[in-house]
């Protein structure tokens, strides 16, 4: 276990290093921020002074070195727009995005698994066909358009649900959460559902194909030959095997869910990281972009680690050293 952890840590550091280089190169390539930040009528001397203040007069690799050294200290610099620590601003927005993404994941799993299992167990029934048809629709329709339509129907026409913001929040350990108040929950429903929609379809398809594959296996025939009750066969023998790919795929996809929150947050004016990053890209606010990317990578590494452990717990064929026997 310790060996596994240290290997994972080394791997993660390597990934962070590569990612930081990529991020730096990508961000470096995004235009000259001075053009945006400074009054267009500024003199050359003023521009030079501004560039010096931001460290932009240094050669490329020197900038990377400074960047890396600061990164290790957890400092990606101050936002050029807000003039505050970029990482701090990001971390303030993180809980809102996490709340949204986790809610979406929970919805996807709670809705997707039973529907997918049903479609897999009874593939020829009309309702199974309907589930599969809807699943195609759910992950092919663009999320932002679904969000817009939900706003029009539930917000503008029916006035059932609020369409913007987080609503009332309650702080737990200093972190504000929406889902703990009725008002916050009502604000959460539409964006969380919008974000989860494509994932519901994905879970349905994964579970269904898993169930169908497992059902054809000899060990299911053997379980039937043992005279087990059908409910036990489905619960213990079928689902346990069929859910393994769901965990891996959904885990690997969590980073995708986080980034996709960009769209949902824009539509529903949800005050998370995504809304901030879009504004920052428009303003070419480099430290903010870097902060966003590094936070995302960190979460990604963390989630993958959790998935690996979960995977090893569920599938005995996988040992934590990563070898498949």
């Amino acid at each position: 276990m310790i060996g596994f952890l240290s290997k994972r840590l080394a791997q993660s550091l390597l990934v962070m290093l590569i990612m930081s280089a990529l991020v730096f190169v990508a961000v470096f390539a995004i235009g000259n921020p001075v053009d945006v930040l400074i009054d267009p009528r500024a003199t050359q001397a003023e521009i030079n002074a501004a560039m010096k203040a931001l460290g932009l007069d240094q050669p490329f690799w020197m900038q990377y070195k400074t960047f890396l050294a600061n990164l290790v200290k957890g400092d990606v610099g101050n936002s050029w727009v807000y003039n505050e620590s970029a990482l701090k601003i990001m971390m303030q927005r993180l809980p809102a995005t996490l709340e949204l993404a986790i809610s979406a994941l929970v919805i996807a799993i709670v809705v997707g698994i039973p529907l997918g299992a049903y479609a897999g167990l009874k593939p020829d029934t009309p309702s199974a066909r309907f589930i599969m048809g809807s699943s195609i629709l759910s992950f092919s329709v663009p999320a932002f358009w679904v969000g817009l339509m939900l706003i029009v129907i539930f917000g503008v026409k029916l006035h059932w649900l609020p369409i913007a913001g987080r609503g009332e929040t309650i702080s737990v350990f200093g972190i504000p959460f929406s889902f703990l108040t009725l008002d916050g929950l009502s604000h959460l429903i539409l964006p969380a559902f919008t974000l989860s929609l494509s994932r519901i379809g994905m879970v349905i398809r994964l579970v269904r194909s898993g169930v169908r594959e497992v059902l054809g296996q000899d060990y299911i025939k053997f379980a039937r030959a043992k005279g087990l009750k059908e409910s036990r066969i489905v619960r213990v023998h079928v689902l346990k095997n069929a859910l393994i790919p769901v965990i891996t795929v959904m885990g690997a996809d969590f980073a995708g869910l986080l980034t996709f929150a960009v769209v949902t947050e824009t539509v529903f004016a949800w005050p998370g990281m995504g809304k901030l990053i879009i504004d920052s890209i428009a303003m070419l606010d480099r430290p903010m972009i870097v902060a966003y990317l590094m936070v995302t990578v960190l979460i990604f590494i963390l989630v993958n680690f959790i998935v690996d452990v979960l995977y090893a717990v569920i599938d005995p064929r996988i040992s934590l050293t990563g070898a498949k026997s």
Partner: protein
Amino acid sequence: MSALLRVENLHTHVVLKDQTIKAVNGVSFSVAPGEIVGVAGESGSGKTLTGMSIIGLTQSPIKIISGNIQLDGDDLRSASPETLRKLRGQKIAMVFQDPMMTLNPVLRIDVQMMEMINAHEKVSKSEARTRCVTALAKVGIPEPERRLHQYPHELSGGMRQRVAIATAMLLSPKLIIADEPTTALDVTVQAQILKEMQALCKENGTALIWITHDLAVLAQIADRIVIMYDGKIVETGTAKQILLKPKHTYTQSLLASLPKAAPDADKGKHIVTDSAPTLIKLTNVHKTFGKQSGLLGKFAQRLRLTTAPLITDAVIDANIDIKRGEIFALVGESGSGKSTLGRLACGLLQPTGGRVEYNGVESFRPKTQNAKQARLAVQMVFQDPQSSLNPRMRVLDIIGQAPLAHGLVSRANLEDYVSKQLERVGLDISIKDRFPHEFSGGQRQRISIARALAVNPKVLILDEAIASLDVSIQAKILNLLAKLRNELELTYIFISHDLGVVEHISDRVAVMQKGRIVETGPTREIFANPKHIYTQTLLNDVPRIDALNHI
């Protein structure tokens, strides 16, 4: 004695959208208490579906259309699903072919065994556990307590099949249906399991239906034999009657196509004299899989960019001379390295150490002179007719690509050339434009042979080339190979796990175990007087028709 199981006029069909296959078409037979009945037939004879119908595990699109199944006073056809479920496990159990697949990979052995008891009886956990331990011990599993805590992947194939058998016997059912339970296992393991099952059935008075394609296995174990063909029973009788005095022509042909070392099977083994020139020579050949990593590779492993390769010795210090015109057999169980040796002998693999020579030159090394000629001179026919033909190529291209690429034939003459190859292996020349999926296993194997012969080889390596075929087809392919050998003066390297066939056709034989050649010599000598202990067990464990040793 009244019958335990009575099957009357059973019809089970596979109902597809555009056609109905009458897989089981009016089958009637009975099994007495404690009796071991063998159901034999080739693939597609309906033997497996008969078993599945009896235990009531048929699923769409397979439907039992009509018939009566009586088991120990219960009518299985009219029973409710819940009654049937209760009967399964308690009165009737089943063991399947592939032990790798019958146990759920994510559940421990104890869970999979104890759930069987819990599904039918109310017993305490500790009592259930004790019963599992006893059951495992009975089927010859050492340290049963420890095994219970393990997962299926931690056990060998033979062990897993024993666990499956122990599970089936947990509630002392009256009848066990075993569908090819030893086919996926090596002969030595098969022999042990055969003995164990026979003893257990006699001890508990359990009746057994043993479904198999292998009549020789039934000679070891069955009291009575039922022969199936095309969904019908063609002959029933005691094992002795069926095996020694078969009445039906189909049974006779099945038995005839089983290779036996009969004295009249002499087919000119004397052609090869010691003075014949050596064609292929392997000297101290060594083959390891999993490359030793270089410095860069080790660094990458440290960083976990790549995983450290597992190093296994597939072939250890092999020395073989193959003389022009002989049939040289390589035998051994799975994993013995015989296939690897075959691939080394035709240049598909490069040896890690030692020399592989063709005609006295090490011509399989890449970039040596005449490498192409040597390669073409030694051709191979593979085991699996499904995967050995490119599914996206027409027969014409499959056979014609290499001759065309090497200038053995011009594009203008290609059609004629391929036709000639097809005629030689007994195929119709009109199939040139068809794709592999349109052919049966036997036909595909003929196409494979035609492809190999199209580049005018001197040596043909037959890597389990008939193993996946039904026995009657096997016999035909063997005849074809004998004919071709005479016509084209070919040399064969015959790789097989099937000692019966090897004894029947080969001149000399090398026995392999765990990568080593343990014994080499003229076939007749080795079979009559094996010197190495491994060869002795191997020969002893091969099921034989002429044995009938349990009667």
